[in-house]
């Protein structure tokens, strides 16, 4: 089993407050890892620490290591790290630009100007996000004209366009309807052959539907991590079992 990302003894603080408490986890390559747990358990903070989105907060600091491709994440120039580790957010956040420009954004930032390469990558990314058929005739319309679910798939296409190794998703379906949720889940199942996916969700059913591995977080700690069926059907920890059966949550 290849490991793409290795987190060693990661603790995260905002000011005096400890949000994550010595997390150690190895993310297997080309699989879907779901991070579940009750609200406020540090799920989002965890993935936002991986691509260093928390760096901009003055009172944020972390200890421990996040090893990506054999190198500590803190050693990368942050822009380079984020090109390799893409992110999709809770609320669809397309830019107020055309559908095409949204997807081409990351490529252009990377200095790709050749129209042919841009066209090809934009189309490929839209296809991977199962959005191509719906928008192929109106690539120049404003992304705001799309529905919420389409916008979220556009954001996935936008993240895929720069060919990241890992895709982080922070509750990507919490703001869209069930049909759009299903489409997004199918997209993730399709793309995991090329890319490692870490998805935060507080929907256990969603984790059961798509994840190969499940990590259960509680109060800033990683309680349990393992193959989905194992964690869901025969959890080792009592806390996990209680969460799954709805004792709290």
């Amino acid at each position, binding site marked *: 089993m290849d490991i793409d990302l290795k987190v060693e003894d990661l603790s995260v603080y905002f000011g005096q407050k400890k949000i994550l408490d010595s997390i150690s986890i190895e993310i297997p390559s080309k699989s879907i890892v779901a991070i579940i747990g009750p609200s406020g358990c540090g799920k989002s903070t965890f993935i936002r620490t991986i691509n260093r989105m928390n760096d901009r907060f003055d009172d944020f600091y972390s200890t421990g290591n996040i090893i990506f491709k054999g190198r500590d994440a803190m050693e990368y120039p942050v*822009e380079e790290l984020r090109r390799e580790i893409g992110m999709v*957010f809770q609320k669809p956040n397309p*830019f107020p*630009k055309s559908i095409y420009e949204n997807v081409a*954004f*990351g490529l252009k*930032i990377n200095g790709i100007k050749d129209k042919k390469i841009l066209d090809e990558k934009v189309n490929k990314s839209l296809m991977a996000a199962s959005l191509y058929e719906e928008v192929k005739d109106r690539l120049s319309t404003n992304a705001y*004209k799309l529905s919420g679910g389409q916008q979220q798939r556009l954001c996935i296409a936008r*993240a895929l366009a720069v060919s990241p190794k890992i895709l982080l998703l922070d509750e990507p379906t919490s703001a869209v309807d069930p049909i759009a949720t299903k489409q997004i889940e199918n997209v993730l199942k399709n793309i995991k052959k090329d890319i490692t996916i870490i998805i935060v969700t507080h929907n256990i059913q969603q984790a059961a539907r798509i994840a190969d591995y499940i990590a259960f977080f509680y109060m800033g700690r990683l309680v349990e991590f393992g193959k989905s069926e194992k964690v869901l059907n025969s959890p080792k920890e009592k806390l996990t079992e209680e969460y799954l059966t709805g004792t709290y949550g």
Partner: protein
Amino acid sequence: MKSTIDRLISVSGLTSIAIIVAITFFLFYNWIPLFETVEPIGFFFGTLWYPTAVPPFYGILPLLDATVWISSLAIFITIPSAFVIAIFITYIVPKKFRYILKTFLEIFSSIPSVILGLIGLSIVAPYFQNVLNMDTGQNILNAAIMLSLITIPMPASMMEDFISAFSPEQKEGSQALGANEFETLTRVVIPGLKGPFASITMLSLGRIFGETMIVLMVAGNAAIFPSNIFQPARVLSSTIAAEMGETPVGTPHFYALFGIGAILFVITFLINVAGEMIRFRYERQMMK
């Protein structure tokens, strides 16, 4: 209780609308009699403004021309400067000084324009004349610079508000794709603020257009067609200020000055409407 407040608000709202209608009526009412003695074409397209000559000429074209010169130059200085200041405050100034700087900006914009006129007259004009060897220091450039100085704080402060309040989700979206702060600013934030910036530009133009005192003091007040920015000029607004006090009521000159007032009013109104329309369109687009 609520209905009393409601009524008070409605009354004050309606009163302000009534006052605007009254002003419009008043301006036009005192303008129309002009056309008993002066041809409309001579007023709108006349190239000479010699209201006290015999026979008098009431052509506003040179005044309009000068207004366009000075306003365009002033807005050309104002908007880029305001933008640079807004970027500076948002991105470079440490957070704790931001508030102080913004307060300072707002105080600066409330300096009476006559004081900037004085500075233009006593410092800038002699400098232009003696050091830069211009024919006269009281000219279009001087007026435009002074106008910009008094206008800049308002658009700068508004732009800063828009830039710092810009959708954090979109900024994160951009950064998550590997864009740095600068790329995010130039490729996401600024394009996303085209609407508000256009609207701020129109508002600033409205302010520049109507500003009277500074131009009266430093533009040189020659009612000629300027051929470059180093020449003196006289704009619509300052013409009223300069001449109204010495004009007998009920003369064509008096009516002509009201005509200028009405034109200023209409143009300022149109500029503001355009600004509001841009803002409205932008907001509707953002609301989806």
